[in-house]
C-alpha cells in the first residue's frame, strides 16, 4: 500500500460483497447444494421457457439446446448452443446464477440453479441425467466442444505461460 487510499475489507465484508461469486473451471466458487433433471425441467418451464422456448430451442432469446456434437465450420451460427459450442460445464452455473432469469437474477436458490444446469446438460445430450449436479459432479462433466478449443496463437505468443483450463 503506497498511496494509503481505499479501505481494507474483512473476509466477512468481502463475502457479503461477493453476491454472485465467479465459478472457476475447477469448481471453485460453486456453492453447497444440488439439483437434478426433474426439478430442472419444472423450474425451466416456469422461469425460462418464455424466453428460451419450450424445450430450449430459443425464441425470443437465445437457443439453449443443440446436438451434443461439437460444431463444424458449416454449422449455422444460429445453431450454436450449449451442446455443441460451450466448452466448460461450470460456465453454466456461473452464468445462470449471475444473470438469469434475465432482469431478475439472484432470485434462484443454489439448488434451483444446479437443477437447471442438470436439465440443460441432459437436454443437450451431454449427460444421461442420472446424476444430480453439485460442486463435485459438475466440474467433471466433459463438454464436446472443449476438444476443439485452442488458445489464439497471437495470445500464446504474447503470454507463453497461459494455458486453457
Amino acid at each position, binding site marked *: *500500500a*503506497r*498511496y494509503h*487510499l*481505499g*479501505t*481494507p*475489507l474483512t*473476509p466477512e*465484508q*468481502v463475502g457479503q*460483497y*461477493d453476491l454472485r461469486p*465467479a*465459478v*472457476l*473451471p475447477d469448481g*471453485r*466458487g460453486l456453492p453447497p447444494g444440488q439439483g437434478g433433471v426433474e426439478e430442472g425441467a419444472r423450474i425451466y418451464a416456469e422461469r425460462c421457457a418464455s424466453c428460451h422456448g419450450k424445450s430450449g430451442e*430459443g*425464441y*425470443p*432469446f*437465445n*437457443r439453449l439446446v443443440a446436438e451434443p456434437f461439437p*460444431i463444424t*465450420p*458449416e*454449422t*449455422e*451460427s*444460429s445453431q*450454436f*448452443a*450449449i451442446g455443441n*459450442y*460451450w*466448452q*466448460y460445464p461450470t*460456465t453454466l452455473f*456461473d*452464468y445462470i446464477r*449471475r*444473470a438469469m432469469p*434475465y*432482469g431478475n*437474477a439472484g432470485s434462484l436458490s443454489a439448488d434451483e440453479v444446479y437443477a437447471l444446469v442438470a436439465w440443460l446438460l441432459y437436454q443437450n445430450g451431454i449427460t444421461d441425467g442420472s446424476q444430480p449436479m453439485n460442486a463435485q459432479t459438475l466440474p467433471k462433466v466433459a463438454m464436446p*466442444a472443449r476438444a*476443439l*478449443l*485452442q488458445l*489464439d496463437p*497471437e*495470445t500464446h505468443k*504474447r*503470454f507463453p*505461460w*497461459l494455458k*486453457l*483450463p
Partner: protein
Amino acid sequence: GGVLLSPLLKAQAQPKAWEEKTLEPLRTLGSPLSEYGERSPFEAEVVRYISPNLRTRTSGADFTPLERLSGVITPNGLHFERHHGGVPQVDPQSYRLVIHGLVETPLVFTLEELRRFPSVTRTYFIECAGNGQNGYRNPPDPNLTATRSRGLASNASWTGVPLALLLKEAGLRPEARWLIPEGVDAVAYTRSLPLDKAMEDVLVAYAQNGEALRPEQGYPVRLVVPGWEGSIQVKWLRRILVTDLPTMSKDETSEYTDVMADGKLLAFTWIMDPESIITYPSGLQRIQPGFHEIRGLAWSGYGRIRKVEVSFDEGRSWRQADLEPPVERHAFVRFKLPWYWDGREVVLWSRAWDEGGNTQPTREEFFRKWGRNNRYHYNAIQAWRITPDGRVTNGDRPLGGVAQRPAGGCGGEVFDV
C-alpha cells in the same frame, strides 16, 4: 468581358448563388448564453445506427455513424454501444470498486479515492469483436454503409488510474495470474483478463473526452484495455477478483470464441487486428466528378498504424495515403488521399499496416483462415464501388458457396436466437 464570360456562365448555371435564408441570421439577435450546449437542430439526424431488430433491446449493440464524423475523436453521444443487460444507472456517491482474492489486503474504493490516484489520459479506440459482422454476409449487402460495415468501433481520450496501481495498493499474492472483473449491470457481466496485461497498460477509467464517462460506456468506472476487443473492457466495474485461473465466463465461451475454417475454436482472441475503412466516399453516398479527398479511419490492436494504402484497381496497385498526426498507439488514425474522379466506374479499397507488419486480408484471404459461420474479428478490406452516376455501393466481391447471414454474436444487427 471575355475573361469574365466563363465564370459568369457558371454563376448563372447554378440555381442561385445564395438564398434569402442565407442572410436571415443577420436580422435578429441569437440565443443567450447557456449552461450546457446542445447540437444544432440541423444535426439531429446524425445518430447511432440501431438495427430495426434491436430497437428496444437491453442486450444489443448500436453503431457509431463513422461517415458523418470528422477527425478521430468520437463524440461521447455517438460512441458505439454494446451491452448485455441494458445500461444501469449508477449513483457515483454509492459506487464502490472492490479488489479481492489473491491479494494481501482486500480493498474497497470510492470514486473519489480512485480519482485521487495518479492519473493517465490516453486516446484509445474501443472496438467490438463483432465489428465487421456484416462482412460475413454472402452475397454482400449492396446497401452497406461505413457505419454498418465498421461502426462498432469508436475512439476517445480516456482518463483513469492505471489498474497496476490499484493492484499494488492491495498487494498481489505470488499465485496471482488472472483478474476477473465484474460489472454492476443486471447480468453482472464478467470476463477473464491476464494480470500481465493489467500491469502493462490497463486503465480503470472514469472520464471520456474530458468529462465523466457516459452511462453507455460504463459510468462511473470501466476498464480500458488498449488494443483488445471491447467486450473485455468491463463497464460499470464493481469488483475485480484476483485469481489463478480464468473463469471461462459465458461471454468468453458462448460469445467471443472464434470458429475457424479448420474447425478449431479459438479462445481469447483478444488483440484486434488492423483495420481501415474509407468513410468518404462510402456506401450510400453520392459524389460528383471532380476533386475529392478520400478520407478514412485506420487502427490496430498491435500498436501504431504505419501506413494506409488505397487501391483503385482491386489490389493490383496501391497509393499511400497521408496519415493525420499525431499517430497514436491503439488509436484511430485519420487517413487522407487527394483524388480527382473522372466520372468512370471505380472500386476503392483501403488497407492498413501496423508497426507489427500486420495488414488486412482480402475477403478471400480472410475466409481461408476464419470460419464462414464465425461472427467475430472480420477485418477484410472493405470495397466501395462508385458507378458513373456517382452512387457509392458495397464493392465487396461475393464468395462462392451458400448464401448466409450472421446470427447471434454481438447482436449488432440480428436476433441472437
